[in-house]
């Protein structure tokens, strides 16, 4: 121990929901919050009878970074980087959902090219997210090869997105009323090459995992949940779809360009871990299908709307005429003026319904930005999938739920 650090008595930040039940044959085990099986920071306090989990108490909040408080301190534009870091596996979807909300409050109709680009990038992000989730949960079962294959593809996608946005993980690419910039030359050609590469690698993973006895034994009939239970606990996204309900916001309440696309909503049968794995794999294929359609129908044209309330003027104009200079100055210092009102906007994020409840009191700073994050709601019901199974199944079930700390704890 390095000299100079006194050893303080560290208080426990959480209080478990239950005390030992009085039975002398059960044991209480603490898993997390820094534990390889809980990718992300979550703590599970489980009471065990032998290897069987009797009941669990899931604690989150270890990554509560004060997102909503920061939002109330920044202008509508400046908080876009914070929005990015909610679900950092698919940051673009958060961007676009937030921008969509503000645009609806302001009554802005985005340009066709932006609409299609946002749809394309949402699907691209969805692939990244599912790749991460499947890779991590397979690695936890020992499939290092599958992990390396999937991360190789994901890395190609990250570099490709970095060519567009300038960052590999957290892009800050959405803007209110448009996007940061148009796609560079040759971007779509490279995209098609990556999609082909994706298909090669994912086919290998399918071949290794789908009919593998070890995986079927570990995943089938583990962590199952019924449709009624899933709805009761507020589950959305792949978890709800794995129980057999084709509920997908892209289909039910279409936004962006989803109404014009041809795609299927993959569903499972039993709602167990295997179904969740398979639904995610199928959704990635659907996303690839959608990206190809979107590339074919991508219109030309501007990406930003002409609206001085929120869109920055051209840099050349800022330097040459006073009106644009003042406009730029006001947008930076005061923020865009969003009319008074509130709105709830929901997009289908990779994990489920990502909702933004935005309240404006008429200024350049939001009065409140609240996130309805799927991961947080899933954590509220995950004990339904853990209880009654083996201790080792916590690892697989937790991996298939794909809890993302930034989004869960905000």
């Amino acid at each position, binding site marked *: 121990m390095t000299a100079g650090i006194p050893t303080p008595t560290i208080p426990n930040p*959480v209080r478990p929901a239950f005390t030992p039940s009085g039975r002398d044959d059960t044991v209480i085990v603490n898993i997390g919050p820094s534990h390889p099986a809980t990718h992300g920071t979550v703590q599970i306090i489980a009471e065990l009878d032998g290897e069987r989990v009797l009941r669990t108490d899931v604690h989150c909040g270890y990554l509560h970074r004060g997102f*909503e408080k920061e939002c109330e301190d920044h202008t509508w534009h400046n908080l876009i980087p914070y929005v990015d870091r909610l679900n950092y596996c698919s940051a673009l979807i958060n961007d676009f959902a937030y921008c969509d909300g503000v645009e609806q409050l302001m009554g802005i109709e985005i340009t066709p090219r932006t609409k299609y680009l946002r749809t394309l990038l949402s699907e691209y992000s969805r692939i990244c997210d599912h790749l991460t989730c499947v890779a991590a949960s397979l690695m936890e079962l020992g499939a290092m090869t599958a992990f390396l294959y999937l991360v190789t593809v994901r890395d190609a996608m990250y570099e490709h997105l970095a060519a567009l946005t300038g960052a590999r993980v957290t892009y800050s690419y959405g803007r209110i009323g448009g996007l940061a910039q148009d796609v560079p030359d040759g971007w779509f050609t490279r995209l098609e090459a990556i999609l082909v590469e994706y298909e090669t690698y994912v086919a290998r993973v399918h071949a290794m995992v789908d009919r593998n006895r070890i995986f079927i034994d570990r995943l089938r009939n583990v962590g199952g949940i019924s449709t009624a239970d899933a709805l009761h606990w*507020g589950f959305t996204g792949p978890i709800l779809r794995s129980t057999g309900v084709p509920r997908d916001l892209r289909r039910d309440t279409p936004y962006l360009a989803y109404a014009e696309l041809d795609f299927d909503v993959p569903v499972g049968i039993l709602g167990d871990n295997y179904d969740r794995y398979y639904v995610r794999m199928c959704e990635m294929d659907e996303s690839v299908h959608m990206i190809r359609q979107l590339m074919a129908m991508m219109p030309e044209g501007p990406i930003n709307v002409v609206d001085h309330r929120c869109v920055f003027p051209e840099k050349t104009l800022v330097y040459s005429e006073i009106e644009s200079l003042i406009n730029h100055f006001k947008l930076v210092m005061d923020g865009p003026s969003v009319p008074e009102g509130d709105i709830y906007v929901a997009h289908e994020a990779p994990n489920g319904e990502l909702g933004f409840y935005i309240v404006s009191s008429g200024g350049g700073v939001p009065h409140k930005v609240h996130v309805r994050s799927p991961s947080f709601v899933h*954590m509220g019901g995950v004990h339904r999938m853990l209880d009654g199974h083996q201790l080792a199944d916590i690892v697989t079930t937790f991996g298939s739920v794909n809890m993302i700390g930034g989004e869960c704890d905000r």
Partner: protein
Amino acid sequence: MLALAGRLKSEFAFDLFLDVTAVDWPGAPLRFEVVHHFYSTVHKVRVRVKQRVREAEPVVDSLVSLYGSAGYMERECHDMYGIRFRGNDDLRPILLYEGFQGHPLRKDYPKQLEQPLVPYRPPQRALEREL
């Protein structure tokens, strides 16, 4: 509120409880606005229910008896705004920690007021460590 939510669930098939949060309007006679969102997977529509409560008595009905998902969200709302939910016995801190004083999303909570659990070290100087 509980009766209204019960009707929404049984008569209008609002089977998915999406969200509960609060909005702080400092200075208003009824300071907190508690906002619920529901969704119907049958009709594919959303509904938003708002109710105002006084600062002195921020109590609303809990919906845990109708929707399991309400439990966590009500705990979060309690953490952030200090809204109490009648009928939810488990309002332990969820995003915050035991011993945190106050409710950070209230407008009168200073943004940078920290309540550290671990006492801070003095600032570190470069190359002070011995290996």
